[in-house]
């Protein structure tokens, strides 16, 4: 088990220079490490939505569920509840999970269910060729908003903190060591974890140099301090022109949802016998 080969026969079709490559490489290396540390490869399940980001599951030779646009989260939740021994990693886009499927994301955070969500936040719809998303800045000129969009962006970290997420982090597609570090901790965190990755889309919204000039790694930040986390999360609102903190904003160990759920099937329930018993309760008098 020292040689882990996570490649598949799928042809990679991301644009040259796309930030998704960094996410792919980082996650492959983290999973490889985890496998080497004794986590069986078959215990990982990758779930994705639809978008450029989502192709990642085709490129990793592990169990996967290539789902629908916006629906990574409920699929991931169910697999976890169905079998809590599995490690579930969801890959999603900003259109995917901050737009179409935002509600699911908030509820998963609320439940503090033990899944890891990695958001490829390129702040644009890549696959459908360049429309604005919930994290695009105001006045973004995309194909659906040629004269500039009229909405302020969401700050997804703030929303996640307000919803009950117990692990909240931000990475950058041009800082692979930080990504590896964050991914590993996110996956190891027991409870709902989200990593917002500022993933550069070289084709439709190339923020590479913009980000490079502004990102910095948080230091001396107390990850256990909710107030501090909120403050840090609000430092950059995905719109204004300020420094952009990276790293782990918040981490808290709380009971996870699936723990309070019934454990997976005991074998040997005699369904017929039990049905008869239940019917007796309906036979009154």
């Amino acid at each position, binding site marked *: 088990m020292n040689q882990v080969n996570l490649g598949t026969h799928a042809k990679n079709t991301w644009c040259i220079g796309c930030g998704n490559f960094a996410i792919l490489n980082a996650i492959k290396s983290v999973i490889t490490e985890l496998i080497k540390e004794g986590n069986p490869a078959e215990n990982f399940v990758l779930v994705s939505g639809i978008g450029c980001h989502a192709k990642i599951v085709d490129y990793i030779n592990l169990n996967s*569920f290539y789902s629908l646009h916006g629906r990574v989260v409920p*699929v991931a939740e169910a697999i976890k509840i169905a079998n809590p021994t599995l490690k579930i990693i969801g890959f999603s886009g900003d259109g995917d999970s901050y737009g179409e499927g935002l509600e699911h994301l908030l509820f998963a955070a609320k439940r503090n269910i033990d899944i890891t969500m990695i958001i490829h936040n390129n702040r644009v719809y890549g696959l459908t060729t360049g429309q604005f998303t919930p994290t695009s800045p105001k006045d973004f000129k995309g194909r659906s908003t040629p004269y500039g969009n009229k909405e302020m962006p969401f700050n997804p970290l703030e929303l996640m903190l307000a919803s009950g997420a117990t692990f909240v982090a931000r990475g950058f597609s041009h800082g692979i060591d930080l990504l590896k570090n964050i991914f590993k901790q996110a996956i190891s965190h027991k409870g709902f974890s989200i990593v917002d990755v500022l993933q550069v889309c070289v084709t439709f919204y190339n923020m590479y140099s913009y980000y490079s000039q502004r990102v910095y790694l948080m230091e001396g930040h107390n990850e256990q301090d909710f107030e501090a986390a909120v403050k840090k999360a609000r430092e950059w609102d995905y719109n204004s022109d300020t420094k952009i903190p990276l790293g782990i904003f918040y981490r808290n160990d709380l009971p996870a949802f699936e723990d309070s759920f019934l454990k997976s*099937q005991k074998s040997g329930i005699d369904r017929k016998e039990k049905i008869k018993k239940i019917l007796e309760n309906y036979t*009154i008098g």
Partner: protein
Amino acid sequence: MKDFTVLIGGKAGDGIDRAGLIIAHILSSTGYRIFIHRDYPSLIRGGHTFSVIRASERSIFAHREQIDILIALNNETLNLHRKKLKENCFYIYDSGQTKLDGDACGTGIPIAGILKEENAPELMKNSCLIGAFGKAAGVDWDIIEKVFKISIPKQVELNLKVAKRGYEFSEKLLDIEKIGQAHLPVLTGNEAIGLGLIAGGLNAYIGYPMTPSSGLLHFLAEIAPEFNLQVIHAENEIAVIMMALGFAYAGKRAAVGTSGGGFCLMNEGLSLSGMAELPALIILGQRTGPSTGLPTYTGQTELFYAIHSGHGEFSRLVVAPGDQHQAYFWSATALNLAWKYQIPAIILSDKTLAEGISSFDIEKAGKVDVSAPLLWDKNDLYKRYQNSENGVSPLCFPPQNNAVIKVNSYEHDEFGITTEDFEITRTMQEKRIRKKEFLLSEIEENYQCVNVFGNKDSETAVLCWGSNMPVCVEAAEKFGLKVIQPVVLHPFPLKQFSDAMSGVKKSIDVECNATAQMAELIKKYGFSVEEKILKYDGRPFSVDELESKLERILR
């Protein structure tokens, strides 16, 4: 008297449902077969609501318009329903609530006074009326006592005291014969579906409340610990269906329940179930539509929608059970078939079936079991979508050593990796569609997909589907007609249906919709109907009503 009807009515919030159920249990424990039709508005208090409790020697699943005893909690009930009484004076009413006019003759119970004397709270008025009913129907007091003791959670003794006062105050109106039959449990259709699902191996139920399917969610949530069931009330119906597919991926049998509006939201997941070949069982409880419609009333308007919902082409199963027995049997069977063929299955229920209550005989429902799907033999490389003659690929579930299990909403190759290749696309489309033919031949061979009731030699047949079956069977009896009920509606069991139709010269289509959907469906197969009896006001047919409609056609 071996077939009679009691109607109890009052305001929403008066506890009519509960009282009706206690009456049903009392009658059930004397050997009668029961059916309860519940009519209530979509509100919590106020508004007129009533239960029709019918008891018969025979197994029944439909109500009658004519009633033998009327129990009125208020004036409105009396006014609305008195004309249905067979015997003018056979009614019991709260004499404090209702002033009778000149020709007064029913049994007035001075409830307020009795409650006051017994120091009992207002909500015990129902116990008093049930007691009065017991006497009126000639039921032995000890039966009432027994039922009260089991079914009343709090203050049984006080309730019994009050009931006894009603019993004593009342007079005997009917002479109900005891019936020497087994005492059967009394269930809603939702409960029969729930038990069927469990018999078919259910591991998880995911729901979002919506009439008339909420009862299924409540029932399964309640009994979940018994079966290690995972019952989840999710954030919305999209999450519901997506979670069900997540469970299926992980090898757990999941079902979901909803009504029209929620089903709409599940369509995208349904199509994914078809594409990814992840079994999913959807209970679609129909009610009066379109849109929010009449949420607590019935309808049969989603036949075509169930068959055609979701984009793209793929195999599916649609069944519409007609009563508690079929509901139990087909819920288990549909779950097994969904897993055998790795397809979505839809159980078309409706308010009449889902919330109707009746006696349930598990022996009569038919034998069901959990049948294992095709599993990977662990030789060779695992291919989630391995092509095969009948389109079905071997399953395995994570974590599985040496297998990588990839499912995909995109078109994909046998490994589940995305493809846009035209040949693979064609092959995979055919694989998914082919399953329908194999499913059809299996069910036509092994199951009663089309039921024939009544006079099998009659040249006139009543055609019906779903919850209209029992009322059709009963009404048709009067005229010696044949009744044909396809319980599997898709893939259409043409062989069995043609057999059933052989010898039929005239057919009368009975449906609870305005466009005669089943008649439309069979048209495609060359069958036409001569007459249609359609009802689309939200109310189910009563036996008498249908009889008189049939009579008009037949004479």
